[in-house]
């Protein structure tokens, strides 16, 4: 990635951060939540490019969220940076362990096995009183390096934290996607035998992808827990995983910024749909997905890239 693009990204995110105090609080909360979804979708993109679609990414999302909630409840930790870091580490750790199994599978088997694992977590969360059972756990207000903003200030602080996380994720994921391991995603999808005979283990590559994607899902979960101030087993449920896959289809795997725009669009469409059709908002959401698959099968990101290519062509002509 060029220095210019990094600067541009920093300016856009910085501009958003500066605009926060002049924006309605509900919108800031919505965008923060969208950014948490966007972080998870960044991880899904990494897997998606290798031909892997997890139907149970909520496993890592919920792991991150519950790590934040339980660290507060059991150990009295309140620092937001520390909590998010723990969420990332725990989710990556869980992925590293289940990866020994999951990385052996591909296609529908990978998808369903990841779904199965997430539903096991869901069952454990529902049945376990110490983990809050179906009611979940409230998350105490976090502090930020000793500062304890309250009221609207807290919403702003979380928003700025989210912007920082998005910026880091964007840099990190872009670097990964341009690395040898990242670029081999297409190669794995195309021809695993060839990859093995070039001397590198496909299983280990998938394991690495899974762990990175889980770290991002954990970050998203941790941020969501702080932003909603509550965690419940629904975060591990398959509809949550389905939502992430939904946004990935909407955004496409072509670009990292598209993941966040897709997540934002998803939150907006869902909010409007719930307002318009409180009992049947899924109808609207489903229609949007249908239209996306019919008319923009490569996702929103492909529109951005097509436009960029068109501009470049025009410039060359």
């Amino acid at each position, binding site marked *: 990635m060029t220095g210019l693009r990094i600067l541009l990204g920093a300016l856009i995110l910085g501009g958003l951060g500066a605009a926060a105090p002049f924006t309605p609080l509900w919108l800031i909360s919505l965008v923060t939540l969208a950014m948490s979804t966007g972080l998870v979708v960044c991880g899904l993109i990494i897997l998606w490019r290798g031909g892997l679609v997890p139907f149970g990414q909520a496993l890592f999302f919920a792991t991150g969220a519950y790590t934040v909630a339980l660290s507060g409840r059991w150990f009295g930790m309140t620092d937001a940076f520390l909590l998010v870091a723990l969420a990332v580490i725990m989710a990556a750790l869980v992925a590293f362990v289940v990866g020994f199994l999951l990385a052996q599978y591909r296609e529908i088997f990978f998808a369903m096995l990841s779904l199965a694992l997430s539903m096991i977590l869901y069952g454990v969360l529902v049945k376990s009183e110490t983990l809050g059972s179906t009611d979940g756990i409230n998350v105490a207000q976090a502090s930020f390096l000793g500062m304890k903003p309250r009221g609207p200030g807290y919403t702003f602080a979380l928003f700025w934290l989210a912007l920082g996380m998005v910026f880091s994720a964007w840099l990190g994921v872009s670097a990964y996607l341009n690395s*040898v391991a990242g670029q081999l995603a297409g190669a794995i999808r195309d021809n695993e035998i060839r990859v093995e*005979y*070039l*001397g*590198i283990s496909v299983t280990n*590559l998938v394991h*690495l992808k899974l762990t990175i994607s889980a770290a991002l899902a954990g970050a998203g979960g941790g941020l969501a827990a702080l932003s909603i101030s509550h965690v419940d087993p629904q975060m591990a449920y398959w509809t949550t995983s389905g939502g992430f896959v939904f946004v990935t289809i909407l955004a496409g795997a072509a670009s990292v910024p598209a993941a966040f725009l897709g997540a934002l669009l998803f939150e907006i469409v869902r909010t409007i749909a719930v307002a318009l059709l409180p009992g049947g908002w899924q109808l609207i959401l489903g229609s949007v997905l249908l239209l996306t698959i019919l008319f923009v099968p490569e996702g929103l990101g492909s529109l951005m890239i097509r436009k960029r290519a068109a501009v470049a062509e025009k410039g060359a002509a």
Partner: protein
Amino acid sequence: MSALLSVKGLEKTFGQVVAARDINVDVPQGQTIGIIGANGAGKTTFVNMITGHLTPSGGTIQFEGSDITGLPSRKIMRLGIARSFQVAQVFPTFSVFENLCAATAIARSGSSVIGAALSRFVSAGTSADAETAISQFQIGQFRDALASTLPQGVRKLLDIAMATAGNPRVLLLDEPTSGISLEEKFGLMDVIMGALKARGTTILFVEHDMEIVQRFADRVLAFYDGTVIADGSPAEALGDERVREFITGTLIRSKDGKLSAGRASHA
């Protein structure tokens, strides 16, 4: 001269079926060995066992003095034994250049997953290696074409070029000219052998066309019924009674006693 690759008592059974038995071969550094035999004679099984695609049922394979029997293919590959495939194995959605970048990038990142995550796919190093391979294998005009659109011969060359990315000591080619028209075969083999000889690679190639074998091999291994029935110079091996009976079949002995190869050698 001690052998670079040494195979002793190698065998492979699939249930009741014996695919390979009692194979003993020493391969010295720098030789070019043609492997002949009818379909089902055990040629590909032999290649697959050396490259770790199949685990032998018995016997040992030594490479540079260490035992590599039954290691996974990627470990064998890392030690310096590479292969190409009967059906060219390339990444169809990558261009020729990207295919070679993938191969050289893996080799340069030390074949470790962490190394692969920390090194860049298109770097000055990988590009230079890829360009070298493109010129050595003479596929420059297809540099930016998607691998899925390549003519068969070019796809074969790309497959072999990718196999050479890690500078292997030994390269096994499984039917490099299969699916290639008669007129193109020799040109293709000239390119392959030219590029590999420049690198000093020891070559084993499976081949059905006896003219190709005679032209390019220093030594011939003839397989029949899972084992080696003749091992020697092309003239010796192709002149062997049993080789003529079971494999070449159509070899004609002319009046002056010299061998000439028949075309219909796919018996």
